[in-house]
């Protein structure tokens, strides 16, 4: 038996050891070592209880300020819920030690322990429920959650506590008086003690708000001043007869602590004041100690309950602002670093005053110093090359008025040394609220002189190789057709001469006709063969981002647009990937853009612009829209303009739009044209988001076979 008992004890011991090890292991980032917490709880609880007992004034069995519960509450906040038993285990001996000295019956002592621990656990659980993250007192949300938790815990546990007092017939106070006294006492204690524990624990990890020699000196001066004022006001006979208004004297020091030392300073200073006020008032000193002890206690509690949270809220609000400021500074810094890294210039244009403000290094990449940087948009516009200016301003205007909000243009900008440099400008119109009037425009300027040179070179090369290939092809076609044509001509000449001589045989003529026929057939065979060759390319359906493709096409068209003085504006919505042939869609866009340029090229500067936009339709397809500000489509011809060889232009072949329609339909979409109520025409075509049925495109044509007009090119 003795042996079995020993084993059981050992097992129990081992179990508790394992649990303790688990508690240590559970200690995540930021959780203190449970052993350390246990020691803290034991000492804190004991001293708190002694202080509470010292502040208990007859005839009430309840103290004015009862800190032990809050020590346990605060300690639990530092640990994960699974380790709260460490706090309970450490508090029990301290509780017994403190209470039994006071001669309280053992039953009452144990009952109190139960109600005390219930309060700590309710409070800690409540906070976990409300915050789901560690309490820091750095945000207003933290502070309000803490106030709710502290109140709920004291409120609920006080019913239990008052009931225990009544059951044990301890003291003479009625149930509700005990309940009220304990509620106020414990709320006061929670507001005083828990913030100190939490913020001072946090400062062990992140350091004091104000550190260094100056910080320490300041803290010393603050504490000295606070102690002096509080002692004089609340703990001496000097002020007992003076007006109660003196209770505000410590306020400047409390504010000082809050403003300069954050939540930590606020909670620390408040704890000092609370202790001194309670002690002084309990001894009948100070402006609050002029009545019966119970009434005095009530005044003190109310005073502290209102002062504490106010300071904590103030500290949290300041902390929130400080952090916001910090993150703003960090992002500003990042922004400046980015600017320096890219060597771009970024400006904001205020649309009401027309003032322009450059960020970071300003226009330094273009040789301007702060003094020479244009202060208004008009002055900035004067730096744009005269040939480009109208077009750029039209793009800006388009972004503001068209509701698109974005613009993208390339132009020449005069550097401070009077040379012109090519820049790429991308911009954004800022509105205070969605759909509201524009208030600001933000633009970035990138020096693209170098990029343009390489671009132009590669474009020229591409053009040259295209032309060369075209030349090859035409030459070979010409040769293939020329041969039978030569033979036919020679045969016709021969026949004619034969007839002229008058001595012809019908056999010879018949032979000649036969040869002509076979050469004619041969020529048409050549043409048929070429067509078959051109149709050979298979449609390659892939999923792609039409916005990205459109951007590339806009870049491709930008050179021509610039040369023709047409501003290209884009407005891309977030759209799903579409299904189609990239080369087809590229060709469609180019055809529509060039068509649009033809439409606006003779217009006044403000109307020489095109807007390309994307959107998702109600059916889920993606719609691409190209709007121009030209003369519009002649009445009744919105359908006909897609026909082959129909043209309203002087030099047009009438193929661009026809090809566009063929390609759109081959990709399973449809294309429409209409006039815009504000002038100009709008072309829309859709692209499918879903893949068309395999093997057959929706128009019924087999994949890979294009109608004749498609192969003629733009």
């Amino acid at each position: 038996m003795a042996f079995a008992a020993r084993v059981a004890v050992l097992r129990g011991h081992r179990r508790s050891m394992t649990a303790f090890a688990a508690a240590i292991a559970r200690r995540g980032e930021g959780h203190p070592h449970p052993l350390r917490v246990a020691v803290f709880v034991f000492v804190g609880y004991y001293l708190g209880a002694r202080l509470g007992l010292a502040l208990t004034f007859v005839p009430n069995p309840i103290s004015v300020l009862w800190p032990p519960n809050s020590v346990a509450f605060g300690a639990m906040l530092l640990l994960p819920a699974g380790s709260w038993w460490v706090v309970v285990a450490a508090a029990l001996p301290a509780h017994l030690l403190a209470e039994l000295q006071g001669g309280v019956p053992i039953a009452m002592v144990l009952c109190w322990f139960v109600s005390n621990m219930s309060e700590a656990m309710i409070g800690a659980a409540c906070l976990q429920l409300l915050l789901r993250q560690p309490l820091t007192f750095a945000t207003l949300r933290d502070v309000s959650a803490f106030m709710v938790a502290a109140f709920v815990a004291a409120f609920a546990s006080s019913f239990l506590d008052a009931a225990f007092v009544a059951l044990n017939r301890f003291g003479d106070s009625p149930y509700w008086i005990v309940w009220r006294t304990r509620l106020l006492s414990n709320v006061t204690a929670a507001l005083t003690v828990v913030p100190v524990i939490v913020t001072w624990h946090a400062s062990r990890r992140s350091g004091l708000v104000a550190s260094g020699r100056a910080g320490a000196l300041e803290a010393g001066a603050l504490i000295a001043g606070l102690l002096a004022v509080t002692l004089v006001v609340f703990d001496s006979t000097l002020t007992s007869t003076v007006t109660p208004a003196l209770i505000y004297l410590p306020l400047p020091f409390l504010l000082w602590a809050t403003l300069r030392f954050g939540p930590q300073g606020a909670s620390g200073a408040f704890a000092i004041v609370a202790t001194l006020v309670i002690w002084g008032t309990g001894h009948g000193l100070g402006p609050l100690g002029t009545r019966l002890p119970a009434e005095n206690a009530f005044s003190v509690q109310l005073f502290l309950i209102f002062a504490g949270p106010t300071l904590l809220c103030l500290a949290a609000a300041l902390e929130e602002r400080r952090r916001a400021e910090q993150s703003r500074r960090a992002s500003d810094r990042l922004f400046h670093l980015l600017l320096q890294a890219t060597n771009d210039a970024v400006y904001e244009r205020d649309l009401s005053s027309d003032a322009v403000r450059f960020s970071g290094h300003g226009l330094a990449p273009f040789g301007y110093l702060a003094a020479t940087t244009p202060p208004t948009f008009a002055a900035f516009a004067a730096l744009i090359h005269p040939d480009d200016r109208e077009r750029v301003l039209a793009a800006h205007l388009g972004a503001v008025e068209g509701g698109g909000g974005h613009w993208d243009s390339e132009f020449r900008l005069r550097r401070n040394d009077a040379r012109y440099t090519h820049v790429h400008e991308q911009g954004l119109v800022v509105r205070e609220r969605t759909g509201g009037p524009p208030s600001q425009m933000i633009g970035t300027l990138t020096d693209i002189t170098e990029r343009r040179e390489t671009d132009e070179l590669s474009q020229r090369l591409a053009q040259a190789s295209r032309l060369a290939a075209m030349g090859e092809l035409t030459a070979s076609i010409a040769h293939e057709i020329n041969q039978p044509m030569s033979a036919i001509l020679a045969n016709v000449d021969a026949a004619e001469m034969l007839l002229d001589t008058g001595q012809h045989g019908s056999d010879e003529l018949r032979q000649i006709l036969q040869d002509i026929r076979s050469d004619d057939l041969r020529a048409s065979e050549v043409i048929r063969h070429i067509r078959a060759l051109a149709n050979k390319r298979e449609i390659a359906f892939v999923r792609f981002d039409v916005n990205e493709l459109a951007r590339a096409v806009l870049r491709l068209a930008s050179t021509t647009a610039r040369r023709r003085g047409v501003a290209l504006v884009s407005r891309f919505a977030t759209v799903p990937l579409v299904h189609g042939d990239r080369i087809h869609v590229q060709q469609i866009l180019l055809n529509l853009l060039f068509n649009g340029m033809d439409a606006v090229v003779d217009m006044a500067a403000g109307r020489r612009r095109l807007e390309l936009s994307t959107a998702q339709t109600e059916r889920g397809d993606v719609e691409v829209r190209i709007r121009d500000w030209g003369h519009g489509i002649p009445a009744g011809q919105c359908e006909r303009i897609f026909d082959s060889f129909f043209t309203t232009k002087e030099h047009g072949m009438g193929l661009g739009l026809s090809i566009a329609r063929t390609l759109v339909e081959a990709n399973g979409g449809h294309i429409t044209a209409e006039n815009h109520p504000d002038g100009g025409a709008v072309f829309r075509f859709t692209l499918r988001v879903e893949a068309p049925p395999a093997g057959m495109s929706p128009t019924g044509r087999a994949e890979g076979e294009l109608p004749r007009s498609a192969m003629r090119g733009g």
Partner: protein
Amino acid sequence: MTSTGPVVHVVDDDASVRAALTRMLRIAGFEVRGYASAVEFLAVRGHAGGCLVLDVGLPGMSGVELQAVLGKIDESLPIVFLTGRGDIETSVGAMKAGAVDFLTKPVKRDALLAAVRAAIARDADARAHRAELRSLHNRFATLTTRERQVFERVIHGKLNKQIADELGTSIRTVKAHRANVMDKMEVGSLAELVGVGNRLENAAHP
């Protein structure tokens, strides 16, 4: 036309073009022979006089290359080039190398016939010229060494006395040689003899 008359040689790789051109030229009154390639033309030796109607873009040896090869042969035929494309560089090169004309396909009848006639005429001239030169050479070959020495000096404008001194003989002997030379070379005057001498010299050092 008889078989000994001029012949138009048509070199074109395209059978139907070749047949049609041949037919047309034949009806126009020329004797015509067709060849499918430059090599096929070169394989036939001893072409009768006439001209060559040559396609520039022949496979294998091109028309221009054939022209270069023929340029090295003495009795080459005048060439009328036909081309599918109006390639200025090639045409300039061909004309500099002695082509009669450079016509683009489909070629107009009158242009082709005119060019062929011009080519044949040029060939006839060249042949007459060559025949004359040949007979001069033949006559020159009958001269003795002494007669050639006298002939050489006469056409360089030397007087009988000078020639006699140089050759170490008498004026009379020189006069006799001179008369023989005039006889053998079939000329009646000193001026004629000088002309014949120059032609022979030019033919020897072109």
